[in-house]
């Protein structure tokens, strides 16, 4: 397992939002984290990359990363497309992308830029533009490109569909599927839209108020009666 999480508690201030959860992300493929608003999905991603207070064990490829600083976890190959997209509004698209690769000194960076332009042609058109002027969908693409330019082993994605038009969401999930197939990266996907997430995921976990209540292969979870009624709506 690439990422293994055991007994993870996490929260803001004195209260815990996650009350000891266990989950794992396999090398390659997509793992989905489902749940309603306030279940703790975003908190889980923030906990994995050390943005908030945590307890419990988190290991990346066998090495413990719980309690490390965010920038150190990132440098181990964990990229995060955060809630709200994390765009550097004042900087240009070019600078945003360069920041994605700022920790890298290998020769593959230029080729990875080309690959990002191929995945997201619109970023090439907007290359010199201030990132704050991009549309929501374009900013989401920029956030994904920025994360992928780190050449991560693990990609954390927080609600990539949030606030976007259905067509753009389709485009973004199509690109995610391509990335999953063509690149050596495991994706941990947080999504409110369970239908969408279960289509692309291999494994899924269902969070309810800070606890994992259902877990298993995505195909099985899609068949699960209670999940279907509460989260899939059919």
């Amino acid at each position, binding site marked *: 397992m690439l990422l293994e999480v055991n007994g993870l508690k996490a929260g803001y201030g004195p209260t815990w939002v996650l009350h000891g959860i266990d989950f794992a992300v396999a090398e390659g493929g997509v793992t989905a984290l489902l749940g309603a608003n306030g279940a703790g999905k975003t908190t889980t991603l923030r906990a994995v990359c050390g943005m908030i207070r945590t307890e419990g064990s988190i290991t990346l490829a066998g090495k413990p990363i719980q309690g490390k600083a965010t920038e150190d976890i990132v440098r181990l190959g964990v990229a995060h497309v955060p809630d709200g997209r994390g765009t550097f509004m004042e900087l240009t698209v070019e600078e945003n992308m360069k920041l994605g690769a700022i*920790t890298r000194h290998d020769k593959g960076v230029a080729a990875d830029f080309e690959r990002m332009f191929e995945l997201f042609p619109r970023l090439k058109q907007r290359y010199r533009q201030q990132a704050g002027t991009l549309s929501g969908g374009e900013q989401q693409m920029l956030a994904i490109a920025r994360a992928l330019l780190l050449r991560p082993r693990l990609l954390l994605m927080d609600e990539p569909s949030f606030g976007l038009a259905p067509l753009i969401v389709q485009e973004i999930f199509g690109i995610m599927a391509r990335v999953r197939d063509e690149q050596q990266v495991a994706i941990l996907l947080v999504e409110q839209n369970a239908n969408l997430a279960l289509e692309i995921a291999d494994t899924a976990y269902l969070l309810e108020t800070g606890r994992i209540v259902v877990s298993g292969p995505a195909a099985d979870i899609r068949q699960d009666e209670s999940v279907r009624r509460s989260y899939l709506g059919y």
Partner: protein
Amino acid sequence: MNGFLHQVIAGIATGGIYASVALALVMIYQATHHVNFAQGEMATFSTYIALTLVQAGWPFWLAFVATIGISFCIGVLIERVLMRPMDKAPVLTHVGLFIGLVLVISNLTGWVFDYTVKPFPSPFHDGPLFGGLVTGHELGSTAVTLVVLGLVYLFFRYTRLGLAMRAAAFNPASARLVGVRVGWMLALGWGLASGIGAIAGIMVAPVVFLEPNMMLGILLYAFAGALLGGIDNPGGAVIGGFAVGVIENLGGTYVVGTELKLTMALVIIIGVLLVRPAGLFGRVVLSRV
């Protein structure tokens, strides 16, 4: 007419000093949203270091570079030791800390280098040039200032480290998520600001003479310049600094007289805050969701 032109040019020369200090203020402001009131005292302390080195027989420009280096380290040290632990403290704690810094550095300077007013050597040709239009020091210090400002611009615009520092200042959370060591970027910002302040101190000391409160008025003008140009806009702050230099000189000569010059800084500060709080070039971030 010649007199007027001379006043403008002299204004540009002092304006360069204000511009440098304004830039130092803005650099720290952008990253921390605090105005470093101690910027002036830090610069004065640095200038004394330069004087000590020059008096010890170092060539001027070697002393100049060494002073910048030492000042850089002092800036980094202050951030690491004093500012870091205050990271999440409320605003008033920071204000208290800055006032404390002003007093401590000012008194330390007086204690170490004594309080007497000292002349400071200019590295440039002494005396008037071009028929009295400009002095050698004015021309030289303006050139140094422009080179420094240009280098700072190139550094932030075209280097990896500059980009990382801007990212850390604009959006620390996102900067961490791409692996930027935000804490160190802040320390580096303090170091750079401190180095730039040192240059301003060394360039102004031959004109105003060196004493522990040398930079007090200059900091006020620089702050006025930073506000005029936009406290969150480095380029604006630089232009504001030059503008304040010219306004101060012309106003002092033709309107209020030299005794009331410093009040003009206050007038500018209050005027800007009343009429256009963001400053002339205050950043307007376009944003679509």
